[in-house]
C-alpha cells in the first residue's frame, strides 16, 4: 500500500470504513490518523493514515509464542484468533504500535447496557472478535480472498481491494502488488520517492509513504474530450 501524505485530507473515512467492514468493537480501531505539525512562518500539518505495515520481516510474527500471528504467502500478517493466548508480546513488540489487545472494556457494545443493535448481533455471527486476543489490520484479507477467487485484481477491482482504500475520497491510499514492477504502487514508490516508516528496524514494511505538493501538473486540458458544438436542452431553460 502507498499512502500519499499530500493528498490526505484527514477526513477519517478510512477509520470508519474499517470499522464497518470488520464489525470492529467500540474500543478498537485498526487504522489511525497521526497529525504531525510544524510551526514557524509557514505552519504545516502532515496527516499520516497508518495501519499495520504487514512487515516482510515482522517482529510480531517472530515474538508470537503460539504461532497465532503468522504471515501468508502474499505477505499479509494475520492473527489466528483461535490460537492467540493474549500474551500481548506482539503488542509490545510491534514498533509501530499497530496492534490492539481486545479486553472486555473495549467490547462493551455501541450502547453499553442499553441495547445491542441489530448490526452488532449480526456482526457477532459474521465476524469473530474474541475477547482476550490481539487484533490488527489484516489488509482486508477476507475481501482480497473473495475478490481473488472471482479472478479480480487487488488494487484495481474494488471487490479485491481494502475497504479503506476504496472509500478514500482523496485517493490518498493506493493498493497493489509491491513485487510487480508495473503496479501502480511500485510506480508511485519509484517516481515519488516512497519511504517506509523506520526502515532502521529492518522490518521492511509493505506500506510506503509519499509526499508531494499539490499543483505540479501543467496539463489541465483534456483534448479528446473537448466538445465543439454546444447543443441546447429541452427542459429547465
Amino acid at each position, binding site marked *: 500500500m502507498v499512502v500519499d501524505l499530500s493528498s490526505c485530507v484527514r477526513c477519517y473515512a478510512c477509520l470508519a470504513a474499517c470499522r464497518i467492514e470488520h464489525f470492529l468493537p467500540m474500543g478498537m480501531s485498526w487504522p489511525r490518523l497521526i497529525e504531525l505539525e510544524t510551526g514557524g512562518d509557514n505552519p504545516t500539518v502532515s496527516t499520516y493514515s497508518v495501519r499495520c505495515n504487514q512487515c516482510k520481516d515482522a517482529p510480531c510474527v517472530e515474538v508470537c509464542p503460539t504461532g497465532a500471528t503468522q504471515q501468508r504467502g502474499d505477505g499479509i500478517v494475520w492473527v489466528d484468533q483461535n490460537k492467540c493466548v493474549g500474551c500481548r508480546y506482539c503488542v509490545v513488540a510491534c514498533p509501530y504500535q499497530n496492534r490492539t489487545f481486545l479486553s472486555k472494556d473495549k467490547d462493551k457494545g455501541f450502547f453499553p447496557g442499553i*441495547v445491542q443493535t441489530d*448490526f452488532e448481533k449480526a456482526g457477532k455471527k459474521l465476524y469473530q472478535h474474541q475477547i482476550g486476543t490481539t487484533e490488527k489490520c489484516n489488509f482486508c484479507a477476507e475481501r482480497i480472498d473473495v475478490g481473488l477467487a472471482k479472478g479480480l485484481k487487488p488494487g484495481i477491482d474494488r471487490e479485491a481491494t481494502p475497504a479503506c482504500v476504496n472509500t478514500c475520497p482523496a485517493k490518498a491510499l493506493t493498493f497493489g502488488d509491491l513485487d510487480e514492477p508495473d503496479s501502480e504502487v511500485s510506480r508511485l514508490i519509484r517516481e515519488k520517492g516512497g519511504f517506509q516508516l523506520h526502515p532502521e528496524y529492518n522490518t521492511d514494511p509493505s506500506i510506503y509513504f509519499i509526499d508531494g505538493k499539490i*499543483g505540479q501538473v501543467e496539463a*489541465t486540458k483534456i483534448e479528446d474530450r473537448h466538445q465543439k458544438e454546444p447543443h441546447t436542452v429541452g427542459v429547465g431553460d
Partner: protein
Amino acid sequence: MGEKKIIKTTCKSCHGGCGALVTVEDGVIIHIEGNPESPTRGTMCSKGLSSIQHINHPDRLLYPLKRMGKRGEGKWERISWDEALDTIEQKMKESIAKHGASSIAVSQGTGRGYNEYTHRFARSIGTANIITPGYICHSPRLGLYGLVTGYGRLYCDYHGWGGEFPKTQISWAKQLEISSADGEMAVWFLDSLKHVKNLIVIDPRETALSSRATLWLQIRPGTDAALALAMINVIINEGLYDRDFVENWTYGFENLKERVQEYTPERAAEITWLKAEDIRKAARLFAEDTPGCIQIGSSLERQANCGQTLRSIICLLGVTGNIERPGSMVAWMPPDTGLREDFFTEIPITPEMRKGIVGSDEYKMGAARTAHSDTVIKQLLNGNSVIKVWFSVGGQQILHLANTTEVIRALKNLEFLVHADQFMGPMAEIADILLPAAHWLEIDDIYDMHPRFMIEAHNRTVNPPGEAWQDSKIFNEVGKRLAPQYWFENVEKMLDYQLKKGNMTWKDFSKKVVHARMGKDQIYYKYKTDYWRKGGGFPTPTGKMELYSTVLEDLGYDPLPYFQEPGESSVSTPDLAKEFPLVLTTGYRQPFYFLSQYRNIPWLRSFQKDPVMQIHPDTAKQYGIEDGDWAWIESPRGRIKQKARLFPGILRGVVMATANCFYPEEPGPLHGLLKSNPNVLTNNNHCDPMYGSPDLTALLCKVYKAEDEK
C-alpha cells in the same frame, strides 16, 4: 441463512449525494459502502458509513409525542399520528383564521434533501415565512449569483466536461475537502487538484489544503471584501483582465474600475493583515493562469458584510472572464426532470404572502422568499411577533441562531411549536408536539442538492423504527389537511409527480438511482447562446454580467461592491477591543460531525470528544492556556468553554471555536447547550443590509483558562 440483497441508494448524512451500496441480510443492514457506479465513485465519509450506529440508536424518537408538563419540562405522552395531525391542523387553522397565514412559520435546518417540501408546504398554506439557515449558509451566494445567471447557481467546474480543468483554484473560506456536498462533492474537487496548477487558500487557519497550496493567505476574519477588491485593483490596473469578456459581456466596468482605485494592495494589506506583495501575487496568478474558479465557503456568508464580500468576489470572477468557461464557474443545466425547485416555485409567492414575510421590509435580498430569523426572534422577545405557530422539521434554530440566550427566551413565547426530528435535542425539548422522523436508510425519496445537474434516489433499505415517518410523508399528510389541492394521495404519487417532466415514475427512477446531465450533455458559454436570452447575453436587465448591479440599485443598495468592517473589530469598535482583544471566528466544520449532529454516534464521537477551539501557541501563552485545557471564551453576550487546541496553524490573535455544539448525553432541556455553543457569544443586532446575516465568524472575544475543570 436468509435473504441477502444489496440495495443502491444515496447517502444524506450531510447535505448528501454519495452513492451507497447497502447490504441487507434478513432485514438487518450488515454493511454500507460507496457505490462505485455513482458519480461519487464509491467513496463515502465517516459520517455516512457510521449511519449504522444512527439507525439503531436507542435514543431514536419512535412515536409522536405530546408535551404534558410545562414547556421544556421533559414530560411527554405518546399519542397517535392521527391525534398529532389533528392537533397540528386545528392549531394552524385557528391561527390562520385569527392572524392570517403569515402567522405560521415553517422551518428546517440546513439542506437535507427535503427543502422542496418545506417550501411547498408553506406556500401551499399561504405563508412565505420559511425559516432556514440559508441566509448564513448558502443563500447569499445563490442570490448574488442570480444577478448574473438568472436562477442563482454558479459552481466550480471540477469535472473537465468541457475539456479543461481549472488551472487556478481559490479555496476561499472553505474546507470543501471535508464539508463535502456543500456546493460540490469533495471527491470531484479532490480529483481536480490532480490537474490544478495553482491552488490559493484564503483562510486564517491551516486547513488540509493550505499547507500544500501554492499560496496561502492567512487573512483577518471578516475582511475578505478588501482582499477581493484589491485583487481586482491589481488585475485592472496591470491590464490583466479578460478584455474580450469585459468589453462584450459586462456592464459597468468603468464604474468598478473607479471604485477599486481606493483598494490598493497596500491599503488592503493594512485591513486584512496580509502582505501587499501576496495580494498582488494572488491577483496575478488568478488572472494569468486561467481558467480559474473560486470555491466560496459559508464563513463568508456568516458575516454582516457578506453581501458586499460576495459581490466583490463575483466581480473578480467577472473581470477575469471566469464565467461559463470550461474549468471556471458554470451554471449547470438540470436534468430533463427539471429543477426540483419547480416543485415549490410552481406555487408562486403572492403579494400578500410577501407582505407577511418577517423582515422583508429591511432585508430585501434575503427576506424575499424566506423570513429573517433574527427579526423573528426579536419580535418574539418584544411581544409583537407575527409568528404564532412554528412548524419545525429538522433544524436546531435554538442553537444555530445568533445570541442563544435570547433565542431560548424568544422560543418560549411561541404559541405552538411542532418539531420533527430523529432525536430529543434542545429544539425538540421545547416543542409542544414531537414527530419522529425517518433516516435516509429508511426512506424513499428524490434527492438533489447543490450542483443541480442530477437527481438521485433514496431507496428504503429497512423500515423506520417505531412509527417514524419520512419527512415527505409528514409534509404530505399535514398538507392534505390544510391545502388538499396541492398534496397527494400518497408519497409515491407525489414522487411520480416530481419526475413527470422526465417521463419517469418513481418506480423507474428508484431502479435507476441516478439521473444526471453530465459530460457532453452540459453546455458551456451559455451567454453566447440563446440559453438565457435570445441572441445571447445574461438574464439581467442590461443583458450583461452586471459588475454594476442595476437590480441592487433599484432596491436601494450600492450597485458597486465595497468593504465594510465587521460589526465588532479593533477598527470599528476600538473601545470594545480593549476588553475583548482577540478576533473570534466560529464554524470550523469537523469531518466527523455535521453541525450539531452525531455527537451521540459512538464511532464518530470517538474521534473528538469535546468541542475544540483553536488558538495559536503564542496567543495561548499570553493568556496562560495550555494544550488540552478547558478555556473560557467570552464576548459581551456571554461566555462558553471549549477545549483549547494550541495550533501553530492559526493566525495569532484569532480564536476559532467549533460551532453548533451541545452534549446529547447531558440532561435536557438544554443538553449542555449553553456550555460550549459559540452562539452564546454572537450578536444578532448587527446584520448584513441585503441578507440580514449576523456576524458569526468575525467578532471580538477574550479567553482565559477554565480553572475548575481539566
